[in-house]
């Protein structure tokens, strides 16, 4: 049961059709397809914000999965558990990012710990990011990285709330992989 009907291929609006060409577009596209003009700007944005960029994939997945776990987004946590594992994160690291173990138990790189603490306070808010977290992150991240990762937290929050509020279903393929690896 979802909070919104997912648009199937035969009802895909014209601007959404490229996303349905010979593939399952996934629930985010199938929900956004209700408003095609939003779909056609949101997906390219998400592709750039979450996809390959100047910041390495591992760093980005740390931010995405940690933010999603802190925000309690079932869809994003499940989906990015698989993405994180595919990116090379260990079972222990993913478990810690999901909140199933202390971060310090899985991570010992000061840069990554600073990044994770910073991402969490950026995501949760409210108000200004505490000066200590901002200063610690600045020691390890360039201004360009801070900008990109701040936007990544924001894009992840957008997805967290979108997927949670609309109760988007996790794909069977992802659920199968989670079951295979013993994730709850």
């Amino acid at each position, binding site marked *: 049961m979802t909070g919104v009907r997912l*648009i199937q291929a*035969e*009802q*895909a*609006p*014209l*601007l959404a059709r490229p996303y349905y060409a010979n593939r399952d577009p996934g629930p985010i596209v199938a929900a956004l*397809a*209700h*408003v*095609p*003009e939003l779909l056609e700007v949101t997906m390219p944005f998400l592709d750039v914000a979450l996809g390959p960029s100047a910041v390495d994939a591992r760093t980005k997945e740390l931010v995405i999965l940690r933010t999603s776990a802190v925000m309690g987004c079932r869809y994003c946590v499940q989906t990015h558990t698989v993405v994180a594992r595919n990116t090379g994160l260990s079972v222990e690291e993913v478990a810690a990012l999901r909140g199933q173990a202390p971060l310090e138990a899985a991570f010992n790189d000061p840069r990554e710990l600073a990044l994770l603490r910073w991402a969490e306070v950026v995501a949760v808010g409210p108000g200004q990011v505490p000066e200590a977290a901002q200063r610690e992150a600045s020691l390890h991240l360039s201004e360009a990285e801070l900008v990109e990762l701040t936007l990544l937290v924001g894009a992840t929050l957008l997805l967290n709330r979108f997927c949670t509020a609309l109760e988007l279903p996790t794909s069977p393929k992802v659920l199968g992989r989670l079951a295979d690896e013993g994730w709850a």
Partner: protein
Amino acid sequence: MSSVAEAVRDEVLPGRVWFYANYHCNLACTYCLTESDPRAERRELGSQRMLALAHEAAELGFTALGVTGGEPFLLPYLPELLARLAAILPVVCLSNGTVFTEARLERLRPLAELPAQIQISLDRPEPDANDAMRGPQNFRKVVEAIPRLVERGVRVRIATTVTAIDDHERARLCQLHRRLGVPDADHIIRPIVRRGRAVDHGLGVDAGPADLPAELTITTDGAFWSPFGPTVHGGRLDTDLLVTRTTMPLRVPAAALLRLVQGRPPGADSQLNIR
């Protein structure tokens, strides 16, 4: 000149913008695209919105308007609205031709001096065959209404929507519309499109973007590729020909439609005489 105006001038984009004035109707035709009937939700676009859209359509470079439904003439403000729309751009209004009371006919008289047409559905030259598709007494009401519009100087176009029509029946139909005062140039024959209620009755031809002129069509639910786009089946709006949910400002769906049209391969334009 706007990109829309250039596209209309170059015949890349059709010049007409359609408004779905409402979705309710006094009839329940077997091939109705929108499952309209007296109980259908009205979903009116509203006169102020249509006027604002018409002004913007003219500014963008569109050259004509169309009003359809539902049965638009169930809206009490329609005669005066048509005159105001026609003062902005030439307008054609589609009607089933069954609600033209004497008072309403008189209110339509100003259209005689304006670039306005009323397109009335008449599918068969004999009452029984016509009314089987469109409902009891439809034929009688239509053949009474058309001459009364014509004698007031209102230009009438007749649309015949059929799965097939043989030469003899076509000849009888043409004799009829000439007798009613409608010339051959104002009679169109078009196929039933298999959408809406026509799906349930196994009627019509399948039609997609390649078959339908890209006539920007505005409804309460959004902007569509064609007036054959915002169809309803099983009580649910079809979205396969949805362009954008945004309808105002009109430049938003107009730009999106133009991008879609320009993305089509050469020659992929209308083939089915669906208009």
